[in-house]
């Protein structure tokens, strides 16, 4: 059987291997992605993002359970940070998802950020496309943190769930400072802890302030309190996620199309940026130069950064 057919028919080993090839940036993975693309566009992609340890994996595990009850198939991508010192990683999100290990309707893949040049969001998007083509009805993407890369991943989901816990002032600040817009649903997990109501109120205020910028027919961000470990509030979260999907897909509504176009644009821009940057770096190396060498000359005032960029871009892209 052809590799595309194997993926589309859901062959686990083939899917697992192509995901690895994408992660490792094997050139051969591109042709597979090209041929898979016509099979994509059916899955509902849901991003879960938030600071370390707030309970994202536990929530993903629980939500996956709800979708399985509806006989929907689920793909899970769980992203963990890479050690900046060794390039290695411990990918531990699966610990919270054990009950799905033997369910053929759930495919779980852990990946490390390997972070450079926004490569994370690109490979995550590509992996989402594979799981989409493989027929997963729902794809849950877990990312740690509230940095630019995570925002970009979140932006490439149809529905974005921002997870926080009581007493995380830094999270509220980050939300205030710019990631407010990307959250369709805000979860206050560990609601068993003190201060949950207060966090909910703070979020409500932020949503209120932001609402002035929204159009009348926009989605009003929702807040859900959960205790993921005990399974409390998950039914409400599931309903809210589904409500968001229904809102996007309502008949006559252009919302789904809007979101899909936004996702596609982000992905296209990201891919262009990556490729253009790679091409430029390769040209720099090809003429026996390097970024570090340029930096040295700039610091020594032999060169200024403006001319450096002008020269590189001129020579790199023409």
């Amino acid at each position, binding site marked *: *059987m052809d*590799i595309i057919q*194997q993926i589309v028919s859901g*062959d*686990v*080993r*083939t899917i*697992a*291997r*192509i*995901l*690895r*090839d994408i*992660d*490792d*940036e*094997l*050139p*051969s*993975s591109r042709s597979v992605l090209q041929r898979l693309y016509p099979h994509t566009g059916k899955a509902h992609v849901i991003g879960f993002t938030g600071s370390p340890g707030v309970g994202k994996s536990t929530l993903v595990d629980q939500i996956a359970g709800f979708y399985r009850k509806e006989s929907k198939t689920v793909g899970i991508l769980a992203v963990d940070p890479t*050690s900046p*010192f*060794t*390039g*290695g*990683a*411990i*990918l*531990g999100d*699966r*610990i919270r998802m*054990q009950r799905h*290990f*033997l369910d053929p309707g759930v*495919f*779980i*893949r*852990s990946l*490390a950020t*390997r972070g450079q040049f926004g490569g994370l969001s690109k490979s995550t998007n590509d992996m989402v496309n594979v799981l989409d083509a493989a027929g997963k009805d729902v794809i849950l993407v877990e990312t740690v943190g509230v940095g630019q890369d995570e925002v970009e991943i979140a932006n490439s989901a149809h529905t974005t769930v921002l997870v926080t816990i009581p007493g995380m002032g830094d999270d509220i600040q980050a939300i205030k400072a710019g990631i407010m817009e990307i959250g369709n649903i805000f979860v206050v997990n560990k609601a068993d802890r003190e201060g949950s109501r207060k966090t909910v109120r703070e979020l409500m205020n932020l949503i209120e302030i932001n609402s002035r910028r929204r159009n009348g027919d926009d989605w009003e961000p929702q807040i859900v309190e959960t205790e993921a470990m005990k399974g409390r509030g998950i039914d409400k979260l599931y309903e809210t996620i589904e409500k968001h999907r229904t809102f996007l897909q309502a008949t006559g509504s252009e919302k789904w199309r809007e979101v899909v176009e936004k996702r596609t644009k982000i992905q296209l821009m990201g891919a262009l940026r990556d490729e253009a940057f*790679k091409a430029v*770096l*390769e040209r720099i190396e090809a003429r026996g130069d390097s970024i570090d060498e340029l930096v040295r000359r700039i610091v020594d005032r032999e060169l200024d950064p403006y001319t450096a960029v002008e020269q590189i871009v001129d020579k790199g892209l023409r």
Partner: protein
Amino acid sequence: MANARKLRILVAKPGLDGHDRGARVVARAFRDAGFEVVYTGCHQTPEQIVSTAIQEDVDLIGLSILSGAHRYSFPRVIELLKENNAEDISVIGGGIFPMEDIPRLKEAGIKEIFEPGAKLGEIIEWVGTNISPRMDADESGSARVSG
């Protein structure tokens, strides 16, 4: 400028005892050696371990055990890998074993056994020399034909 393949390792702990300190220490050592480690916690059945190894496309499974369940679980992992056309994934074990069991485990297909005295550096070195990331890009579904 393509990335080199990263070695991916599943560290799993079959059996009923809930002490995974040893497994965590090894997982951390693997990370510090630059490997990507999928860690799944305690109480894993051989079925769960093999399913995870396949979904995560690891090159190596490291089984850690204290409770004596190795006589069943180790060979069972090998058997399940074969059933799933995944015998190209290597398996090693660490923990406490009666001496006389070791040859039998190796015969069953466990590549190497590390006893509690084994130094972390020793394990890392063994992995570095004996296990390399899968290289074939397009070949899929079926097991590799080693030549």
